[in-house]
Protein backbone atom coordinates (compact mmCIF):
# COMPACT_ATOMS: atom_id res chain seq x y z
CA UNK A 1 0.00 0.00 0.00
CA UNK A 2 1.29 3.47 -0.83
CA UNK A 3 2.21 5.31 2.34
CA UNK A 4 -0.35 7.91 3.36
CA UNK A 5 -3.36 6.44 1.60
CA UNK A 6 -4.84 5.08 4.83
CA UNK A 7 -4.60 8.54 6.36
CA UNK A 8 -6.20 10.08 3.26
CA UNK A 9 -9.09 7.70 3.64
CA UNK A 10 -10.03 9.54 6.83
CA UNK A 11 -11.13 12.53 4.83
CA UNK A 12 -13.40 10.43 2.70
CA UNK A 13 -11.20 9.27 -0.16
CA UNK A 14 -11.50 5.72 -1.43
CA UNK A 15 -8.47 3.56 -1.81
CA UNK A 16 -7.81 0.31 -3.57
CA UNK A 17 -6.19 -2.82 -2.20
CA UNK A 18 -5.29 -5.77 -4.36
CA UNK A 19 -8.67 -7.47 -4.32
CA UNK A 20 -11.30 -5.18 -2.92
CA UNK A 21 -12.40 -1.56 -2.59
CA UNK A 22 -12.19 -0.29 0.96
CA UNK A 23 -14.17 2.78 1.90
CA UNK A 24 -14.55 4.78 5.07
CA UNK A 25 -17.91 5.55 6.62
CA UNK A 26 -18.90 7.60 9.62
CA UNK A 27 -20.66 6.33 12.74
CA UNK A 28 -22.21 8.89 15.03
CA UNK A 29 -22.81 8.38 18.73
CA UNK A 30 -24.86 11.03 20.49
CA UNK A 31 -24.46 11.03 24.26
CA UNK A 32 -26.54 13.14 26.62
CA UNK A 33 -24.90 13.48 30.00
CA UNK A 34 -25.84 14.61 33.48
CA UNK A 35 -23.94 17.91 33.42
CA UNK A 36 -21.42 19.79 31.24
CA UNK A 37 -18.69 17.68 32.83
CA UNK A 38 -17.57 15.15 30.23
CA UNK A 39 -16.97 12.65 33.02
CA UNK A 40 -20.60 12.88 34.16
CA UNK A 41 -22.99 9.99 33.66
CA UNK A 42 -24.68 9.30 30.32
CA UNK A 43 -28.46 9.63 30.70
CA UNK A 44 -29.62 9.26 27.09
CA UNK A 45 -28.05 8.07 23.85
CA UNK A 46 -28.48 7.52 20.12
CA UNK A 47 -26.42 5.76 17.48
CA UNK A 48 -26.45 6.51 13.76
CA UNK A 49 -24.36 4.13 11.69
CA UNK A 50 -23.19 5.18 8.24
CA UNK A 51 -21.58 1.79 7.61
CA UNK A 52 -25.01 0.25 7.10
CA UNK A 53 -24.25 -2.49 9.63
CA UNK A 54 -26.59 -1.25 12.32
CA UNK A 55 -30.04 0.32 12.31
CA UNK A 56 -30.69 1.68 15.77
CA UNK A 57 -34.10 2.95 16.72
CA UNK A 58 -36.08 4.14 19.69
CA UNK A 59 -36.09 1.95 22.76
CA UNK A 60 -33.56 -0.58 21.54
CA UNK A 61 -31.35 -0.58 24.65
CA UNK A 62 -31.77 -0.07 28.35
CA UNK A 63 -28.25 0.98 29.30
CA UNK A 64 -25.96 3.52 27.59
CA UNK A 65 -23.08 2.12 25.50
CA UNK A 66 -20.62 4.16 27.56
CA UNK A 67 -20.80 5.49 31.09
CA UNK A 68 -19.67 8.98 30.03
CA UNK A 69 -18.29 10.99 27.12
CA UNK A 70 -14.76 10.42 28.38
CA UNK A 71 -15.35 6.66 28.51
CA UNK A 72 -16.39 6.78 24.84
CA UNK A 73 -13.30 8.85 23.97
CA UNK A 74 -11.14 6.22 25.65
CA UNK A 75 -12.64 3.69 23.24
CA UNK A 76 -11.68 5.73 20.20
CA UNK A 77 -14.71 7.97 19.67
CA UNK A 78 -13.87 11.55 18.66
CA UNK A 79 -15.98 14.43 19.94
CA UNK A 80 -17.14 16.46 16.94
CA UNK A 81 -19.70 18.71 18.58
CA UNK A 82 -19.76 20.37 21.96
CA UNK A 83 -22.95 21.87 23.42
CA UNK A 84 -22.86 25.62 23.86
CA UNK A 85 -24.16 27.04 27.10
CA UNK A 86 -26.52 29.98 27.15
CA UNK A 87 -28.04 31.87 30.05
CA UNK A 88 -31.80 31.41 30.48
CA UNK A 89 -33.91 33.92 28.62
CA UNK A 90 -35.70 36.25 31.05
CA UNK A 91 -39.02 34.68 31.99
CA UNK A 92 -37.94 31.22 30.87
CA UNK A 93 -35.71 30.30 33.79
CA UNK A 94 -37.83 27.28 34.75
CA UNK A 95 -38.85 26.13 31.31
CA UNK A 96 -37.46 22.79 30.22
CA UNK A 97 -37.22 21.44 26.72
CA UNK A 98 -34.42 19.55 24.97
CA UNK A 99 -31.57 17.84 26.78
CA UNK A 100 -28.85 20.44 27.24
CA UNK A 101 -25.67 18.43 27.43
CA UNK A 102 -25.55 16.76 24.06
CA UNK A 103 -22.20 15.53 22.76
CA UNK A 104 -21.84 14.19 19.24
CA UNK A 105 -19.00 11.72 18.71
CA UNK A 106 -17.76 9.95 15.61
CA UNK A 107 -15.81 6.92 14.59
CA UNK A 108 -14.65 6.30 11.05
CA UNK A 109 -14.85 2.66 10.02
CA UNK A 110 -13.84 0.77 6.95
CA UNK A 111 -16.41 -1.02 4.88
CA UNK A 112 -15.45 -3.52 2.24
CA UNK A 113 -17.12 -3.80 -1.11
CA UNK A 114 -16.53 -4.11 -4.81
Amino acid sequence: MIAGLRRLSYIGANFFSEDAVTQIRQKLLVLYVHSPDLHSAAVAWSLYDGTGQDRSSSGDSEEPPYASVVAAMQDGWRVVQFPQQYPAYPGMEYNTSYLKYEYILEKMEEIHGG
Partner: protein
Amino acid sequence: MVDKQHLLNSKQMAQFVADGLLRFDELVPDELNRAACAEMEAGVLRGKAGVPMDELWQDLAIGQVIRLPAIQGMIDSLVGPGPLYDHHAVHTVNANHEHGQIWHADAIIDTRMHFDVQFFYFAHDTPREMGGTMFLPGSQYRRVSESDIARYQNFLGQMPMVCKAGTVAVAHHGIWHCAQPNLTDNKRYMFKLRLNPTVRQKKLWNTDDIDDAEIPGLLNANHRWYGNEVRLEAVNRIKMWRFLTGDDNFDLSYWLSRLENAPENELRAA
Protein backbone atom coordinates in the same frame (compact mmCIF):
# COMPACT_ATOMS: atom_id res chain seq x y z
CA MET B 1 -70.66 12.08 39.11
CA VAL B 2 -68.83 8.85 39.73
CA ASP B 3 -68.87 7.33 43.20
CA LYS B 4 -66.03 8.58 45.40
CA GLN B 5 -64.58 5.09 45.74
CA HIS B 6 -63.62 5.19 42.04
CA LEU B 7 -61.82 8.53 42.16
CA LEU B 8 -58.04 8.72 42.25
CA ASN B 9 -56.48 9.54 45.59
CA SER B 10 -53.92 12.25 46.36
CA LYS B 11 -50.94 9.88 46.20
CA GLN B 12 -51.98 8.76 42.73
CA MET B 13 -52.39 12.39 41.71
CA ALA B 14 -48.91 13.19 43.03
CA GLN B 15 -47.53 10.30 41.01
CA PHE B 16 -49.33 11.63 37.94
CA VAL B 17 -47.85 15.08 38.52
CA ALA B 18 -44.33 13.62 38.79
CA ASP B 19 -44.43 10.84 36.19
CA GLY B 20 -47.00 12.24 33.79
CA LEU B 21 -48.91 8.97 33.69
CA LEU B 22 -50.64 6.28 35.71
CA ARG B 23 -51.00 2.68 34.73
CA PHE B 24 -53.74 0.24 35.65
CA ASP B 25 -53.02 -3.37 34.76
CA GLU B 26 -55.74 -5.78 33.60
CA LEU B 27 -58.46 -3.25 34.40
CA VAL B 28 -60.88 -4.10 31.58
CA PRO B 29 -62.70 -7.47 31.65
CA ASP B 30 -61.74 -10.04 29.00
CA GLU B 31 -65.09 -10.09 27.19
CA LEU B 32 -64.93 -6.32 26.71
CA ASN B 33 -61.35 -6.62 25.53
CA ARG B 34 -62.34 -9.15 22.88
CA ALA B 35 -65.24 -7.00 21.71
CA ALA B 36 -63.05 -3.91 21.63
CA CYS B 37 -60.41 -5.73 19.56
CA ALA B 38 -63.08 -6.65 17.02
CA GLU B 39 -64.23 -3.03 16.86
CA MET B 40 -60.69 -1.78 16.40
CA GLU B 41 -60.19 -4.19 13.51
CA ALA B 42 -63.35 -2.89 11.89
CA GLY B 43 -62.58 0.75 12.69
CA VAL B 44 -64.08 3.00 15.34
CA LEU B 45 -66.11 5.95 14.08
CA ARG B 46 -64.49 9.31 14.70
CA GLY B 47 -66.41 11.97 16.57
CA LYS B 48 -66.28 15.69 15.97
CA ALA B 49 -63.56 17.38 18.00
CA GLY B 50 -65.04 19.31 20.91
CA VAL B 51 -68.28 17.37 21.39
CA PRO B 52 -69.16 16.06 24.86
CA MET B 53 -67.53 12.67 25.37
CA ASP B 54 -70.75 11.33 26.89
CA GLU B 55 -72.46 11.53 23.49
CA LEU B 56 -70.08 9.11 21.77
CA TRP B 57 -70.10 5.35 21.25
CA GLN B 58 -73.28 4.60 23.18
CA ASP B 59 -73.61 1.17 21.54
CA LEU B 60 -69.97 0.20 21.24
CA ALA B 61 -67.73 -1.92 23.45
CA ILE B 62 -65.20 0.91 23.34
CA GLY B 63 -67.89 3.12 24.85
CA GLN B 64 -68.47 0.55 27.59
CA VAL B 65 -64.76 0.58 28.37
CA ILE B 66 -64.76 4.37 28.72
CA ARG B 67 -67.86 4.18 30.93
CA LEU B 68 -66.33 1.65 33.35
CA PRO B 69 -66.49 3.21 36.83
CA ALA B 70 -62.72 3.00 37.25
CA ILE B 71 -62.13 4.89 33.99
CA GLN B 72 -64.84 7.42 34.81
CA GLY B 73 -63.07 7.90 38.14
CA MET B 74 -59.81 8.72 36.36
CA ILE B 75 -61.61 11.13 34.05
CA ASP B 76 -63.43 12.90 36.88
CA SER B 77 -60.22 13.13 38.93
CA LEU B 78 -57.98 14.45 36.19
CA VAL B 79 -60.12 16.56 33.84
CA GLY B 80 -63.42 16.61 35.70
CA PRO B 81 -66.91 15.51 34.75
CA GLY B 82 -68.31 16.31 31.32
CA PRO B 83 -65.05 16.32 29.34
CA LEU B 84 -64.89 17.01 25.63
CA TYR B 85 -63.80 14.47 23.04
CA ASP B 86 -60.66 15.73 21.30
CA HIS B 87 -59.86 12.78 19.05
CA HIS B 88 -59.08 9.10 19.16
CA ALA B 89 -56.94 6.77 17.09
CA VAL B 90 -56.60 3.04 16.65
CA HIS B 91 -52.82 2.72 16.52
CA THR B 92 -51.45 -0.40 14.89
CA VAL B 93 -48.01 -1.88 14.35
CA ASN B 94 -47.84 -4.50 11.65
CA ALA B 95 -46.45 -7.96 12.30
CA ASN B 96 -42.66 -8.30 11.99
CA HIS B 97 -42.10 -4.55 11.99
CA GLU B 98 -38.52 -4.20 13.24
CA HIS B 99 -38.10 -0.49 13.89
CA GLY B 100 -39.33 1.69 16.69
CA GLN B 101 -41.30 4.83 15.97
CA ILE B 102 -39.49 8.11 16.59
CA TRP B 103 -39.98 9.71 19.96
CA HIS B 104 -42.58 12.46 19.93
CA ALA B 105 -45.03 14.40 22.04
CA ASP B 106 -48.52 14.73 20.63
CA ALA B 107 -49.86 17.98 19.15
CA ILE B 108 -47.68 21.09 19.45
CA ILE B 109 -46.06 23.18 22.18
CA ASP B 110 -48.72 23.69 24.84
CA THR B 111 -48.06 26.42 27.40
CA ARG B 112 -51.13 25.83 29.59
CA MET B 113 -51.14 24.66 33.18
CA HIS B 114 -54.53 23.15 32.35
CA PHE B 115 -53.99 19.80 30.73
CA ASP B 116 -55.71 17.21 28.60
CA VAL B 117 -55.45 13.50 29.27
CA GLN B 118 -54.79 10.68 26.87
CA PHE B 119 -55.92 7.14 27.51
CA PHE B 120 -53.84 4.30 26.08
CA TYR B 121 -55.87 1.09 26.11
CA PHE B 122 -54.17 -2.24 25.40
CA ALA B 123 -57.00 -4.64 24.63
CA HIS B 124 -54.82 -7.71 24.01
CA ASP B 125 -51.69 -9.08 25.65
CA THR B 126 -48.65 -6.98 24.75
CA PRO B 127 -45.35 -8.75 25.53
CA ARG B 128 -42.06 -6.88 24.95
CA GLU B 129 -41.50 -8.54 21.58
CA MET B 130 -44.77 -6.94 20.48
CA GLY B 131 -43.96 -3.45 21.67
CA GLY B 132 -45.87 -1.79 23.14
CA THR B 133 -45.92 1.96 23.55
CA MET B 134 -42.72 3.30 25.15
CA PHE B 135 -43.23 6.18 27.60
CA LEU B 136 -40.70 8.53 29.14
CA PRO B 137 -41.93 9.21 32.69
CA GLY B 138 -41.34 12.79 33.78
CA SER B 139 -41.23 14.28 30.28
CA GLN B 140 -44.65 15.95 30.28
CA TYR B 141 -43.60 19.51 31.15
CA ARG B 142 -40.94 19.78 28.45
CA ARG B 143 -41.89 22.27 25.79
CA VAL B 144 -41.31 20.58 22.47
CA SER B 145 -43.20 20.44 19.24
CA GLU B 146 -44.19 16.90 18.24
CA SER B 147 -41.24 15.18 16.50
CA ASP B 148 -38.61 17.73 17.50
CA ILE B 149 -37.28 15.04 19.84
CA ALA B 150 -36.82 12.43 17.12
CA ARG B 151 -33.01 12.54 17.39
CA TYR B 152 -33.18 10.79 20.79
CA GLN B 153 -33.32 7.01 20.82
CA ASN B 154 -32.92 5.82 24.39
CA PHE B 155 -33.20 7.28 27.88
CA LEU B 156 -32.51 5.98 31.33
CA GLY B 157 -35.89 5.15 32.83
CA GLN B 158 -37.82 4.75 29.58
CA MET B 159 -40.83 2.52 30.19
CA PRO B 160 -42.28 0.11 27.63
CA MET B 161 -45.89 -0.86 28.18
CA VAL B 162 -45.48 -4.60 28.55
CA CYS B 163 -48.83 -5.71 29.81
CA LYS B 164 -51.70 -8.15 29.82
CA ALA B 165 -54.96 -7.55 28.00
CA GLY B 166 -57.17 -4.89 29.52
CA THR B 167 -54.38 -2.63 30.73
CA VAL B 168 -54.95 1.12 30.60
CA ALA B 169 -52.52 4.01 30.97
CA VAL B 170 -53.70 7.57 31.40
CA ALA B 171 -51.20 10.30 30.62
CA HIS B 172 -50.72 14.05 30.62
CA HIS B 173 -50.97 15.31 27.04
CA GLY B 174 -47.31 16.33 26.97
CA ILE B 175 -45.72 12.97 27.70
CA TRP B 176 -43.03 11.75 25.31
CA HIS B 177 -43.76 8.37 23.78
CA CYS B 178 -43.21 6.15 20.75
CA ALA B 179 -44.47 2.85 19.39
CA GLN B 180 -42.07 -0.05 19.70
CA PRO B 181 -41.19 -2.73 17.15
CA ASN B 182 -43.54 -5.67 16.78
CA LEU B 183 -41.47 -8.80 16.18
CA THR B 184 -44.41 -11.19 16.43
CA ASP B 185 -46.52 -12.57 13.61
CA ASN B 186 -49.61 -10.69 14.82
CA LYS B 187 -50.65 -7.11 14.25
CA ARG B 188 -50.63 -4.99 17.41
CA TYR B 189 -53.48 -2.67 18.37
CA MET B 190 -53.67 0.17 20.86
CA PHE B 191 -56.60 2.52 21.32
CA LYS B 192 -55.80 6.12 22.22
CA LEU B 193 -58.33 8.72 23.31
CA ARG B 194 -57.72 12.39 24.15
CA LEU B 195 -60.11 14.34 26.39
CA ASN B 196 -60.27 18.05 27.27
CA PRO B 197 -61.44 19.46 30.61
CA THR B 198 -64.47 21.72 30.87
CA VAL B 199 -64.02 22.64 34.54
CA ARG B 200 -61.15 24.10 36.55
CA GLN B 201 -58.82 21.22 37.44
CA LYS B 202 -58.72 21.81 41.18
CA LYS B 203 -59.17 19.13 43.86
CA LEU B 204 -61.33 16.98 41.62
CA TRP B 205 -60.03 13.72 43.11
CA ASN B 206 -60.62 12.07 46.50
CA THR B 207 -58.61 14.41 48.71
CA ASP B 208 -59.06 12.46 51.96
CA ASP B 209 -55.30 11.74 51.95
CA ILE B 210 -54.18 15.23 50.85
CA ASP B 211 -51.78 15.51 53.81
CA ASP B 212 -50.27 12.04 53.37
CA ALA B 213 -46.59 12.09 54.31
CA GLU B 214 -45.62 10.19 51.16
CA ILE B 215 -46.75 12.93 48.78
CA PRO B 216 -43.60 15.10 48.87
CA GLY B 217 -41.48 12.03 48.11
CA LEU B 218 -43.69 11.08 45.19
CA LEU B 219 -43.47 14.60 43.78
CA ASN B 220 -39.69 14.60 44.17
CA ALA B 221 -39.14 11.50 42.03
CA ASN B 222 -35.89 11.58 40.04
CA HIS B 223 -36.25 9.88 36.66
CA ARG B 224 -32.50 10.36 36.01
CA TRP B 225 -32.70 11.06 32.25
CA TYR B 226 -32.79 14.84 32.75
CA GLY B 227 -29.57 14.84 34.81
CA ASN B 228 -28.76 18.18 36.39
CA GLU B 229 -32.20 19.61 35.55
CA VAL B 230 -33.89 17.56 38.29
CA ARG B 231 -34.42 20.71 40.36
CA LEU B 232 -36.13 22.48 37.48
CA GLU B 233 -38.37 19.46 37.11
CA ALA B 234 -39.23 19.77 40.82
CA VAL B 235 -40.14 23.43 40.32
CA ASN B 236 -42.53 22.54 37.52
CA ARG B 237 -44.16 19.88 39.71
CA ILE B 238 -44.51 22.34 42.61
CA LYS B 239 -46.28 24.73 40.25
CA MET B 240 -48.60 21.97 39.03
CA TRP B 241 -49.40 20.80 42.57
CA ARG B 242 -50.20 24.39 43.56
CA PHE B 243 -52.45 24.65 40.48
CA LEU B 244 -54.26 21.41 41.31
CA THR B 245 -54.68 22.03 45.03
CA GLY B 246 -55.09 25.81 45.10
CA ASP B 247 -52.41 25.94 47.80
CA ASP B 248 -50.10 28.73 46.65
CA ASN B 249 -47.74 28.11 49.56
CA PHE B 250 -47.04 24.47 48.75
CA ASP B 251 -43.35 23.75 48.30
CA LEU B 252 -40.82 20.95 48.09
CA SER B 253 -37.39 21.29 49.66
CA TYR B 254 -37.96 25.09 49.96
CA TRP B 255 -37.16 25.50 46.22
CA LEU B 256 -39.72 28.19 45.46
CA SER B 257 -40.15 29.67 48.93
CA ARG B 258 -36.64 31.11 49.00
CA LEU B 259 -37.08 32.60 45.53
CA GLU B 260 -40.39 34.14 46.52
CA ASN B 261 -38.85 35.78 49.56
CA ALA B 262 -38.32 39.39 48.48
CA PRO B 263 -38.98 41.51 51.57
CA GLU B 264 -40.04 45.11 51.08
CA ASN B 265 -40.41 46.01 54.77
CA GLU B 266 -38.02 48.78 55.63
CA LEU B 267 -36.33 48.58 58.99
CA ARG B 268 -37.54 51.34 61.27
CA ALA B 269 -34.90 53.52 62.79
CA ALA B 270 -34.50 52.99 66.54
